[in-house]
């Protein structure tokens, strides 16, 4: 019998397009700060109906239009709920995967719109770490620029957490 809840059982770090016998060494997403920023902005917007309520609740026509106001407020929260999860999905689907053979960069640009780049570890010539600004240094995030042999010259992975350790992990493979 098909168990629908098996969907939520731990599935390991397998990914679409994974080669047979390919082992995932590590998986990284953008630094958590960028997700926290999204959560914070959404949190700020949750207060907007309260502000509007404070402004219009004492007007004479509010008693008549109060039902409409609560309906629009619920609709607003429905849209906000969707936008929050849309941003969360984009965060979760933008991934950097290091396997024993290659690096996979998957960039989700929107619904049904993604860019995937792979890079063989044997073709790596040089890896640079770029950390620009106070925030990047304080929170320890930055970009990884990988120079390769062949016609694909540079690979750039942006806003990764702890890029120096990541560079070391790549070099250790």
């Amino acid at each position, binding site marked *: 019998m098909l168990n629908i809840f098996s*969907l*939520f*059982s*731990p*599935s*390991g*770090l*397998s*990914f*679409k397009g994974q080669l047979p016998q390919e082992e995932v060494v590590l*998986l990284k997403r953008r630094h958590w700060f960028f997700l926290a920023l999204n959560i914070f902005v959404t949190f700020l917007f949750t207060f907007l109906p309260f502000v509007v309520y404070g402004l219009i609740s004492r007007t004479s*026509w509010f008693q*008549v*239009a109060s*039902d*409409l106001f*609560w*309906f629009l407020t*619920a*609709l607003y*929260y*429905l849209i906000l*709920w*969707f936008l929050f*999860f*849309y941003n*969360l*999905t984009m965060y*979760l*689907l933008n*991934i950097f*995967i290091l396997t024993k053979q290659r690096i996979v960069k998957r960039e*989700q640009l929107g*619904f*049904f719109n*993604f860019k995937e780049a792979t890079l063989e570890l044997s073709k790596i010539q040089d890896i640079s770490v770029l950390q620009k600004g106070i925030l990047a240094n304080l929170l320890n995030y930055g970009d990884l620029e990988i120079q390769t042999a062949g016609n694909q010259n540079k690979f750039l992975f942006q806003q990764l957490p702890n890029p120096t350790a990541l560079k070391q992990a790549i070099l250790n493979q």
Partner: protein
Amino acid sequence: MLNTIFLILGVIAGVLYLWFLFTLIYHLIRFSIGNAPKIIALVFFLGSFCLVILVIALFFKINWQNLSDLIVPIFKVF
């Protein structure tokens, strides 16, 4: 009249929302890695379900006659 216009708009918006709901859950389940995104998809679905029920309930609570009495005089000015 006002009721019907909003009802039509609501049905169109509802169908659009259902499409976006499906797309987001599809992306989280189909393309994500690991277990956490699937649980997030479930939370999103349950939250959306509750909010949609709330929106529908509040829509049918609106007294359109009173609103018409409030809005129509404003349009008569123009």
